[in-house]
């Protein structure tokens, strides 16, 4: 198991290098002069040159990339924001937990509700509950999350005035963003759980469990669900990735000071160090999630567990 973990963690390194290099290339070709944007129109040519030298903007792509990796790995230093002049690591430390909270709260909500709805739909196939849930799930998949967010603000903040429409400090502030961000994933997980459970429920080993005289509840939750979980875990992993992306939009709709908004603002302002740091963190989060998904697999599927040993 330790060897498996170690191998997987080592495999993360090329991915993170690849992602950052890709980003460096993109930023390299991006039009717009950061020096000009930061120092303003009145800046002298000398001060512009000075800024570029200070931030290695006059160096070739590979040099800049090498310096970034060296400083990040050796000094844990990702530079300073052009705009605020504060260290990137500090800016990210302020915003990353918010985004992580938003995304993990949403994935927990999406998974728990998606599993529950999916299981009930499968057990009561073609019932009224099943039909209504499937229609809502289709709506959930088709609604852009920024539209859903605005609608929720309109109903629950503006008209009913139950919860505030922005911020992310109190539980009441977090409720709408969590729901908004989880809606699509919840719908997808519900549909996946339903179809996966339907397949498993008809299997021979579920019949065996019934033939033992097992109660229906245990048959569904112990025998059927654990087998149905295997494809569902893949979907949950993919959805967590999507949620990290969706968090960017959610943060924009609800004015949440998270890393997604930080990244978007930085891209617009050509604040390269912030963009680099934020994307690196998101990529790492992504890779860690994939690792967790693989570990979950091993926990659920004994075929993989016996291989990993």
């Amino acid at each position, binding site marked *: 198991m330790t060897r498996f973990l170690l191998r997987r963690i080592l495999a993360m390194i090329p991915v993170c290098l690849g992602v950052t290099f890709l980003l460096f290339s993109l930023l390299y070709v991006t039009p717009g002069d950061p020096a000009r944007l930061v120092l303003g129109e009145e800046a002298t040519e000398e001060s512009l040159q000075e800024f570029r030298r200070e931030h290695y903007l006059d160096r070739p792509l590979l040099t800049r990339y090498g310096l970034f990796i060296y400083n990040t790995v050796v000094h844990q230093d990702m530079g300073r924001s052009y705009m605020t002049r504060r260290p990137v690591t500090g800016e990210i430390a302020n915003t990353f937990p918010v985004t992580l909270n938003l995304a993990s709260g949403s994935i927990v909500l999406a998974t728990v509700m998606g599993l529950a709805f999916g299981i009930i739909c499968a057990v009561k196939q073609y019932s009224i509950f099943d039909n209504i849930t499937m229609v809502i799930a289709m709506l959930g998949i088709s609604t852009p999350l920024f539209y859903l967010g605005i609608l929720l603000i309109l109903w629950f903040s503006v008209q009913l005035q139950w919860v505030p429409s922005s911020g992310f400090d109190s539980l009441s502030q977090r409720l709408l963003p969590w729901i908004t961000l989880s809606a699509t994933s919840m719908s997808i997980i519900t549909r996946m759980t339903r179809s996966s459970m339907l397949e498993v429920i008809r*299997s*021979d*080993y579920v*019949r*065996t*469990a*019934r*033939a*033992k*005289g*097992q*109660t229906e509840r245990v048959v569904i939750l112990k*025998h059927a669900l*654990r*087998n149905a979980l295997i494809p569902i875990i893949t979907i949950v992993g993919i959805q967590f990735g999507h949620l990290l992306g969706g968090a960017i939009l959610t943060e924009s709709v609800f004015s949440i000071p998270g890393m997604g908004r930080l990244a978007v603002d930085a891209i617009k302002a050509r604040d390269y160090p912030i963009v680099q740091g934020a994307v690196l963190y998101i990529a790492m989060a992504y890779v860690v999630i994939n690792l967790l998904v693989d570990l979950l697999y091993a926990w*659920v*599927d*004994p*075929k993989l567990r*016996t291989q990993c040993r």
Partner: protein
Amino acid sequence: MDQQREHILDIRDLRVQYHTDTGLVKAVEGLNLSLARGETLGLVGETGAGKTTTALAIMQLIASPPGRIAGGSIFFEGEDMLAKSEEEKRHIRGGKIAMIFQDPMTSLNPVLSVQEQIAEMIRLHQKVTDKEALEKARDMLGLVGLRPERGPDYPHQFSGGMKQRVVIAIALACSPRLLIADEPTTALDVTIQAQILELMQQLKQHFNTATILISHDLGVVAQLCDSVAIMYAGRILEKADAKSLYANPQHPYTQGLFNSIPDMTKNVTRLNTIAGLPPDPTELPPGCCFAPRCAHASGACSEGSPRMVEYKPGHFVACSRMNGNGGGALGPAEERGQAHG
């Protein structure tokens, strides 16, 4: 009735139907069958004759929808299974009636260790601690010829024959009174088949369990069974003790089955077959369901189902040819009593 007490199982006029897209499938239609304590009965018939449906009906595991028990009764130890609550049925399933399914590859849960799957059965029907249940599960593994240390392993680490041993261990874990084995060897290699049959033979003597062995293989049935029932299109056509049936098959269908077994002592170029195909279960023919394929069929065969007649003591045949020299036209009650004699 006295006979009910000595019979562990007594099925009367059972009818099971499935609603499908193509129509109402009458999988079992007017089936009568009984089993004495400790008796091993071979239930023989072609694919689609309704053997598995009968087994599932006894277990009360007909999936509904699309299936439903449309009529009849199933007496197990003198009590009607159909009248029991779901709770009572659960105690009988596994505890008193156990079933071995056809395909060992798919009938074990892939994500649970085999000892857990055996122990689950024990915990459900006996008052034991988790530890005792696991211990007993490993004992069962030993009993079916597997190493008890392999208990924590998962189904994918076992071969097909070993998996079927595990399935047998699960079924026998609570010493059931009745064991239904649905084609237990069909999915296995021939050499493994012999081993599994031998194991079942041993265990049958060890537990003295009444057994219904479902098979389409007359050879397998001959090895294990005291009596044999021939099933066709949802009905029993002939039932007798194994010796009498093998020596003297009476129903034209049974005769056809025996004739289609290739005789190794003769050099034949063509195998004997029964002409025609089994009837469409959505549209059973009126009268005797075998009549359309029967060489002896006469006009009388398509009028009303032939009654079960005792051709000689303990040997029953449902064929209109027998109605003349047998018991004649019997009333339904008498006929039933005889058919289960």
